[in-house]
């Protein structure tokens, strides 16, 4: 069971779980009309390293003058949390018309998922004090969000923050997933 805290910090922090975060798919202008498509994710977890987020916060919102914009983050990395039940059935993105590979919950694939032995996913079983269903982070679906926008989202839609060690575990597994190398057969 993962530990998470309900208390929030003012700044964005690694391990923050936020509701209803938007990912812009495309913006096009066509025949005098602007069309924007976005995906709204019910839950995401912040993956960007906490030291980077802390430095960005100090740069943006502290009154201290700086000579450069060197510590400014252009965006923050997040990954969606899907309902574990939906992931087992491969229907976590059915509202987007996408079918995913189901995971047999009673056999090895399900066991591996829950033991966090599947590189692509990270299983989170929140305790009774956190009002979140058992969820799965899909590292393959990470996306970036503007830092200022995400901070506003946090003010309204903060759910919890995953506790230390548990959030570092997620970050470490995410980094490993990105760095994986597929060798040819």
């Amino acid at each position, binding site marked *: 069971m993962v530990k998470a805290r309900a208390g929030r910090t003012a700044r964005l922090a690694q391990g923050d779980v936020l509701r209803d975060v938007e990912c812009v*798919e495309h913006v096009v202008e066509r025949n*005098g009309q602007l069309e*924007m*498509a976005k*995906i709204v994710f*019910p839950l995401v977890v912040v993956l960007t390293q906490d030291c980077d987020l802390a430095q960005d916060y100090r740069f943006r919102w502290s009154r201290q003058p700086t000579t450069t914009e060197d510590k400014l983050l252009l965006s923050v990395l997040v990954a969606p949390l899907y309902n574990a039940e*939906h992931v087992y059935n491969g*229907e976590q993105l059915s509202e987007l018309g996408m079918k995913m590979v189901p995971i047999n919950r009673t056999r090895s694939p399900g066991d591996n998922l829950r033991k966090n032995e599947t590189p692509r996913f990270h299983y989170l079983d929140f305790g009774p004090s956190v*009002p979140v269903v058992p969820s799965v982070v899909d590292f393959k679906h990470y996306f970036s969000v503007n830092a200022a926008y995400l901070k506003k989202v946090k003010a309204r839609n903060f759910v919890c923050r995953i506790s230390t060690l548990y959030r570092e575990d997620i970050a470490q597994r995410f980094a490993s997933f990105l760095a994986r190398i597929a060798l040819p057969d």
Partner: protein
Amino acid sequence: MNNQNPFDKEYVGGMPSTIAPESKSGTKQFLKEPVEPQELKRYGTSKPTRVVVRAKLIHGKG
């Protein structure tokens, strides 16, 4: 191979019966048991959705 009688009366309760096991309607059961208020407040039950926004551009607005 074990020597256990596949029709061991002890296993089936000692009473031969041809009545099928009672099947409970899952829907009936769900309707009888209201969802706990805590369940209603749990996040993560919905799925990602796509939203398309269209707006007309006003060119040359001063």
